[in-house]
């Protein structure tokens, strides 16, 4: 269970978000500048909220009143950034073991290779990230995050940097994985097609959650122009360009 209630003013964004995720996938949608990336940075611990509280399965990650602000490295969150951010100076296996510093040396390689295998990129261990396709990069980045056994997943525009074919393919795989892992997963996206990944959609506009529900629920009672445009977006595929 990931419970979020945070406020932060930064630049033109005045963010006040309350959101809680059980073992489910929630799609956070919203126009550019709505505060989606800021929300991710607050959760990750690289930006501090002005006030509020973040808790994950009973562990307090942040609590302004109690003066708790857990360091980013201690939050046990799996993060998949938009461009996947593979370390360019390390090969695939070097990336996959990066987060396993606390594990016994002998176990690291075996454990990391296991995750690469599960995501279908085990054969690429010795490759440099520069030599991988977009889809392969995403799989490696996911394996790297999951090898640490995170307690929640944060995905930032997971398919935005893929070509349409890879996007369709990986979206289907990702749906399967999310169902399998049953972790609280927060997916930031402005692509309605990504709704198939999520149990629920939370629409953020001007720093607030303006509406939550399934795609059908949003479609039936859209609270704003963005929501109705988003919900009307192509159910499934092909890739919508209208909202870019």
């Amino acid at each position: 269970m990931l419970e979020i209630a945070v406020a932060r003013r930064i630049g033109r964004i005045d963010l006040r978000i309350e959101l809680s995720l059980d073992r489910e996938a929630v799609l956070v949608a919203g126009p550019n500048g709505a505060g989606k990336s800021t929300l991710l940075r607050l959760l990750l611990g690289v930006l501090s909220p002005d006030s509020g509280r973040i808790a994950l399965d009973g562990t307090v990650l942040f609590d302004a009143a109690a003066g708790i602000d857990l360091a980013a490295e201690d939050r046990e969150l799996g993060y998949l950034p938009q461009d996947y951010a593979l370390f360019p100076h390390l090969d695939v296996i070097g990336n996959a073991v990066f987060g396993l510093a606390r594990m016994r040396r002998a176990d690291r390689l075996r454990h990391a290779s296991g995750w690469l295998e599960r995501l279908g990129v085990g054969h690429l261990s010795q490759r440099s990230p520069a030599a991988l396709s977009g889809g392969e990069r995403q799989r490696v980045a996911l394996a790297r995050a999951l090898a640490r056994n995170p307690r929640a997943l944060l995905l930032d525009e997971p398919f935005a940097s893929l070509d349409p074919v890879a996007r369709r393919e990986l979206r289907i795989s990702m749906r399967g994985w999310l169902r399998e892992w049953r972790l609280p997963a927060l997916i930031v996206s402005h692509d309605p097609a990504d709704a198939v990944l999520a149990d629920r959609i939370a629409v953020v506009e001007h720093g607030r959650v303006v509406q939550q529900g399934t795609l059908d629920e949003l479609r039936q009672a859209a609270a704003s122009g963005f929501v109705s445009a988003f919900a009307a977006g192509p159910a499934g595929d092909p890739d919508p360009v209208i909202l870019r």
Partner: protein
Amino acid sequence: MKPPRIDAWGSAQLLASALLGAFLLLPVVGLFATLSWNDFLGGLRDPLLLPALRLSLVTTSSSLALVVVLGSLFAWRVARNPGRVSRWLEAIAQLPAVIPPAVAGVGLLLAFGRRGLLGAWLDRHGLALAFTTPAVVLAEAFVSAPFFVQAAIAAFRRVDENLLVVARTLGASRFRTFLRVGLPLAAPGLVAGAAMSWARAVGEFGATLLFAGNLTGRTQTLPLAVYTAMESDLRAAQALSLILVAIAFAFLFVLRRMAAGAALPGTEPRGA
């Protein structure tokens, strides 16, 4: 085939390039071309050479270590925390590059000399700096720091923020993120900056002369030895100069090779 068109603008560029190129090259050619082999060997036996060579190597490696260690942390802070404080720090780090070396020498004396701002206090605690070997190191560090710090700030700024955030989420502390991600990705820029900085330190003359003096074996580095030799024997000065040039070329060559080896696809455009 048509002959290339010759116009005034093209000719002007050609002429300017030829003039400036010849002007820059001629003194270097002069150093090599006007010295006979015997004169060179004679110059090598000059009693000034060995102490000055040893002192130059010891002091410049010390000042380089000082500049690289402090400068890396300084540059990381400036690059990763944009804001007013960082802008001030960056300006301060550029200061020595625009101060004439002789003025830097006077300044160092007024700061660290026996009656200087900090020097008076140091002196009371039995630490006299001026006209000692450590003074040479300080003078070299002062004039060479901007070259490394500037390059390091630029190199660290090019490191993708996302990589650092991901490293943190993968359990790396801020220090480990710096060590395992920031440093390796900035390495080519850091090595290039270190090379420029070292080259400046080896050639340091004015600030050293004023703040550290010209004492054989203690503060007389190679450039000061060249100056001293000039007063008695031009041949010896020329031989010393050639050695200085040879060391600098060799060191720069090695550093450039290291930088090329450390360069990664996608981290820094070649030849930038």
